[in-house]
């Protein structure tokens, strides 16, 4: 069926089966491959996108149910070509290694810092406690959250 998706400020019309996951529609129909799929059962958080600003697992959402929302993917975080504070802090703090889980962390933290711009270390840990990373051991991701909050 034909649906409209509002992604990163642009309107897209796509033809999808009702069963198509939002993650697949973003990745394969819109070619926004920055959203990654790590488990397809909502646990790892790699596929997290912002749905009207709120972090959601795009592997647990059908594309057809996303039509009325404004969706932001990792590709939409940089403004005017400049890395966002969160992205820049990840680079500064070595908050990523293989980069596969990173987009989900970036979207999650972007929303988290909007709601709580000055988190304590404990709150920073809490903010990312629903996302899995197998490379970094999280130390530098927590540092990146605090760094981004500073800037």
């Amino acid at each position: 069926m034909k649906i409209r998706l509002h992604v990163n400020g642009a309107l897209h019309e796509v033809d999808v089966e009702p069963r198509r996951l939002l993650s697949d529609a973003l990745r394969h129909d819109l070619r926004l491959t920055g959203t990654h799929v790590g488990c397809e059962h909502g646990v790892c958080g790699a596929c997290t996108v912002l749905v009207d600003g709120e972090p959601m697992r795009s592997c647990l959402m059908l594309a057809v149910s996303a039509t009325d929302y404004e969706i932001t993917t990792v590709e939409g975080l940089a403004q005017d070509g400049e890395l966002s504070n969160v992205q820049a802090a990840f680079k500064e703090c070595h908050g990523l290694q293989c980069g596969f889980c990173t987009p989900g962390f970036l979207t999650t933290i972007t929303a988290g810092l909007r709601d709580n711009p000055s988190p304590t270390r404990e709150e920073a840990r809490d903010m990312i406690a629903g996302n899995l990373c197998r490379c970094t051991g999280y130390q530098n991701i927590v540092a990146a959250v605090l760094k981004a909050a500073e800037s």
Partner: protein
Amino acid sequence: MTTKLFGEKIKRVEDDRLLRGLGQYVDDLMPGALEMAVLRSPHAHARIVDIDVADVLDLEGVYAVYTYDDLEGTMAQPLPLLIPHPALTHGRTQYALAKDEVNYVGEAIACVVAVDRYVAEDAVARIRVDYEFLAPVVGVDAARAAERLVHEDVPGNIAARLEQEVGDAEAAIAKAPHKLSLDLRIERSASMPMEGRGTVARWDTDSHRLQVWSSTQTSTGLRAAVAAKLGLDLGQVDVMTPDVGGGFGVKIVHPWPEELLVPMAAMALGRPVKFTEDRREHFVSSAHEREQVQHVDVGFDDEGRLLGLSVQLWHDNGAYTPYGLIVPIITSTQLLGPYKPGAYKVVFESLYTNTVIVTPYRGAGRPQGVYAMERTMDAIAAYLGKDRTEVRSANFIQPEEMPYDHGMTFQDGRPLVYDSGDYPASLEKLKKLVGWDEFEAFREEMAALGRRVGIGLACYVEGTGVGPYEGAHIHVETSGKVKVAIGLTSQGQGHKTVFAQIVADELGVPFEDIEVVAGDTRRMPYAVGTFASRAAVMSGSAVALTARMVRAKAIRIAAEALEANEADLEIVDGLVRVKGTPAVNLSLGTVAVLSNPLRYAFDEASKAATQFTVGDPGKPPVAEDDEPGLEGRDFYSPERSTFANGMHAVIVETDPETAEITILKYAVVHDCGLLINPMIVEGQIHGGVAQGVGGALYERMAYDENGQLLNASFMDFLMPYVTEVPESIDIDHLETPSPLNPLGIKGAGEAGVIPSAAVFAAAIEDAEGIPIRQMPISPSDLFELRNQPVVEPDA
């Protein structure tokens, strides 16, 4: 810019792209490719009576379905046994698609290619297989009992038995003043990268070439396997490694069935074909590691000095042995750690079970070996009533004894000779870092509050940088940009950054002008792969040697052009200049133009070059011993492995009621030789420690007696989130340079995970006063242990 970059915390060049969501992992490539789904065995052990695919092609959008009967030529043969060994008398490998029998839940039986993955999975559901069930063998105990066989032609389920002995261990133990025996167990975990396996292939019908992109740790290995299996010349196959979402060992295995089936289908259909593994598939059809049962007999003197050590290992290798005996050989040799064992005997049996194959996962047998040795050290200390660090000190190889020859054969078939290390100095650092000497006061302080704490330490030596070789190719373009190609692949280690640091220093060019490509067989067709913490040592050394070669050529050409002595020239910031007279210079881009007698004036460098003449007019334009171009290719091949080492200590708190285990402090002292980029090394340690925490406290593969993996999802297989890892890790480095390579480096990738099972067992034992003999340990396990009657089985 003359600042040396080696040793600096340079920010990664990889990051910008990855942070913008512009990384290119396999599944991001080749939009519109057909997609493959695989029918996998739901049974751990069964004979395949019949496969009915009649309905499959009726489904709209399905292009092909394959079973074993469709495989031709060498594709119909078993997959390669990558690393044969004389002791592997009963090596077995699976077929790309099962022939007659399946031996683990998840084994590939058939595959479908369709317009997308949804349709492909629909089609797979239409395949009907009749099975004749066979009794499965699950776990080391069942394999040893051998009441049932995994492979009917493998007696006792024994794939291999290997014995190594230095001295007469049994006699030494018999004569020793004190003796102990320990029975130990360690369970399965897995690499579990966030990106699973994936492959996409395109057959170019015009040029008759096959292009394969795979999420692999070895592009050259995969290339050779694909060519051999599909009957192609090596020169017809290119393998490219795109961004890889983590490896940790599992992606060194090659070829996976899908890595052959995808190109096979792409060639047959004349369309690009892709396979992207889902998470459940990764659990049941990639690889696991770690499960071993161990028995240690040790004899020692009053100081706790080892006089004789005899170790028996029963290693669960899963259903097949594509990766040979690497894991148990590493366990049996690296078990020795920083210690002199006295007489040493080790025997292992590698056993078949009806479970997923076992191949290296970060650490690759070392965590098990360290666990056996460090549990033994702690048991000796407890027996003698000595401080655990004293017993270790009594057994350390001393710095002046380096290089130290254990008289054994290592995984690479070379002598087990340690190159460097200062273990007493490392231990002193660790004791300070963790507060070893102050711990008893802390314990009392906590006890007064009703809290229970324990401290543990564990030491390891890690053979890294195994051969046989790696290479590099460096090309200076006429723009002055430097293009570097290494053959091994990257999975997040920051190779593009650290190797650019080396080139910047060696060649004297700006860091920003250097671009590194990894794992593209078009650019570097000879390479081995990324495993055994070898990338920095092997490719780093190859990059340095190649940069020196290119530098020498640049100096030679520039000396001629500038009519200067080579010895008077230096390269700084991409300019070859006369020392002390920097105004007399040539850019490397111009030197690149001069290196090639064919000089079309495409760019400024070419125009600049017209002022200079090089070459002897009496000789051919390209001299006999020369080549056109400012480029070079060189290889590094070490005589033997380097040996990094380290020590971890942890302080844990155990809840007296709930048995919850909390990490209060984690300390790491680490000697990986000279550090190229401390930021990246520390990142490797952080990640390794987190995986170690997972392996010690949370992760296990829960197989039931039928061989079903009950926890094949991230819901049930408990990988650490941020809430499970230590809040901070105290790290100290000791840098004893390796004498074996031009940069003095040793490798760091696996270090963080190696001592984890040992160090947590030690700390929990210390907190609880209960011998810990099985890892991982969950709060429920600990709760159960507390309620078991006390036995003293060790003495």
